[in-house]
């Protein structure tokens, strides 16, 4: 449509024919690609993800193998990022640590979505007493300090069947997921409450639409944008929480590498071997920044009003 020549009437039909059909997500994708920071964020995430997935191909070292003859080595051609106090390769530990972090980020948000979305949607569309009850429960959850509740939950869950799954990582998923869902459920409920007032919902009801149909077809798809954004912002929060838990020693069990635990281990020798703290700290900072950029970009891209 950017042709410089003026279309004459006989060509008009062809010009309109040529306009591509774009779905809304398609549209958002085009807008997202134009956002440099979001693209940079996505690339960083992709690099970490590829590193995490193909870790065994990238480094020949085992993240758990100790070599007490070569401890506290500075970064070199042999050990790209040096070794730690037990002679383990830091680069390998960082790569495998990315597995932990990304898994925590993604799986906690899945749990959040699985719990928060239906509860929020149900409360918002039903309204009345159901809404009141559910939201008071959410308020109570909200009233507790997050980190305290997560520590409490992980202590409780450690004693159950989940305790030993994947080196304690399942406990982390569950503990964070079971606390963080309240945000999403509040968001979804708020979205649905405001969308319910919109004319097209009245119109859908005037056409004889059922309550559940209206929720699934009209209300939820319209709140998809904010939900995706919230989930994207939830990932770095979960990663950070896991790092914090591992830092204070109640996260994943050693020797499973975690960036938080790496900082904890390196903390005591921070002045003699600073790379032991710097490497995982930079990794955490980078992945959080990347997800935040991507989240910002998604928020702009998914908002139809930002259409230029």
């Amino acid at each position, binding site marked *: 449509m950017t042709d410089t020549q003026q279309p004459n009437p006989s060509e008009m039909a062809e010009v*309109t*024919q040529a306009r591509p*059909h774009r779905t*809304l997500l398609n549209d958002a994708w085009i807008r997202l690609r134009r956002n440099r920071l979001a693209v940079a964020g996505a690339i960083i995430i992709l690099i970490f993800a590829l590193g995490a997935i193909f870790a065994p191909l990238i480094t020949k070292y085992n993240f758990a193998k100790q070599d007490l003859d070569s401890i506290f080595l500075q970064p070199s051609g042999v050990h790209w990022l040096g070794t730690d106090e037990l002679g383990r390769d830091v680069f390998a530990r960082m790569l495998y640590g990315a597995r932990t972090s990304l898994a925590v980020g993604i799986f906690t948000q899945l749990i959040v979505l699985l719990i928060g979305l239906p509860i929020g949607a149900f409360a918002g569309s039903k309204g009345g007493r159901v809404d009141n009850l559910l939201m008071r429960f959410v308020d109570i959850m909200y009233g507790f300090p997050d980190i305290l509740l997560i520590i409490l939950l992980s202590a409780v869950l450690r004693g159950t069947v989940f305790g030993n799954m994947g080196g304690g990582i399942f406990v982390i998923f569950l503990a964070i997921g079971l606390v963080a869902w309240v945000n999403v459920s509040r968001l979804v409920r708020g979205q649905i409450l405001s969308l319910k007032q*919109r*004319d*097209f919902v*009245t*119109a*859908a*009801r*005037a*056409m*004889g*639409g*059922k309550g559940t*149909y209206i929720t699934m*077809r*009209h209300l939820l*798809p*319209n709140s*998809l944008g904010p939900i995706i954004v919230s989930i994207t912002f939830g990932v770095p929060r979960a990663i950070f929480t896991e790092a914090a838990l591992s830092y204070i020693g109640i996260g994943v069990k050693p020797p499973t590498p975690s960036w938080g635990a790496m900082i904890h281990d390196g903390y005591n020798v921070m002045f003699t071997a600073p790379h032991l703290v710097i490497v995982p700290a930079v990794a955490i900072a980078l992945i959080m920044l990347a997800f935040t950029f991507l989240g910002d970009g998604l928020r702009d891209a998914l908002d*139809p009003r930002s259409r230029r």
Partner: protein
Amino acid sequence: MSTLLDVRNLVTRFHTQDGVVKAVNGASFTVAKGETIAIVGESGCGKSVTSLSILRLIAQPQGKIVSGEALLDGTDLLKLSTEEMRKIRGARISMIFQEPMSSLNPVLTIGRQMTEQLELHRHMGQQEALAEAINLLKLVGIPQAERRVKDYPHHFSGGMRQRVMIAMAISCKPQLVIADEPTTAVDVTIQSQLLELIRGITDEMGMSLILITHNLGVVARYARRVYVMYAGTVVEHGPALSVYHHPLHPYTSGLLASVPRLDEPRKGRLAPIEGQPPDMMCPPVGCPFQPRCAYALPKCLTDRPELQEMAPGHFTACWVAFSGETLWQKT
């Protein structure tokens, strides 16, 4: 002609934090099969609430239909269960809304929004429903309908969206279409096209039509009979031409005087109706129009007039008109 919809003494109220808004106070009207009627009145006189009440779509829990009947082919819509009512909406009574810009779901394609009700009410398969949606779009004059069904609402202009809304409203072949100020949100140039379209289609398909409007000019042209509403009640009704040429209620006459005319020589400034519509939380005791009426009698302050037939089929509720004087009539 047999009666399709018979609304009797409809009373709808809204409970707000400031008190009870008596939005509709005993409105009554009938629509015959295949007939077009118009409900006219200024903003806030209860036109829209009346139509939403018939479909039982007024905002819950504040809004409440207190009493009255709305008989569709003899069954009282106000007494049906929620589920039974849902089956009537769209299938037997459908509605065209005021705001085409916001009455379509922005994240669904036009085709998807249309096919859903076809599948729901007419039990069509997906392919069949899509073909029917394309036919309907062609019927309402959307060019390249085959392509346009895949478009989203924001690809359409206001007038086009209203055409889509019309297509959706008639898609399940309802017996009654309620058009709630269908042209207020679109360009003046499109307004008459849309009204012609609505009228043409409903006529052709033998549907009854309730045209809700504040434009008396529209009424004379499209409706057979007119109901003039004021403060939640009908103050005058009768054949369109009779109401238009011989208004029996000072309010109707005021409405007519405040509309510019192209077919008559200019007589100077337009004459607006002085004052404001009454506060529906505490409407006047007597005639609701009395505070704004230049001809009010002492009786108007205390007694509410009931509708009386003054000419064949032409009713009014006005003490002054009952006394035989219609000073406001054009000479």
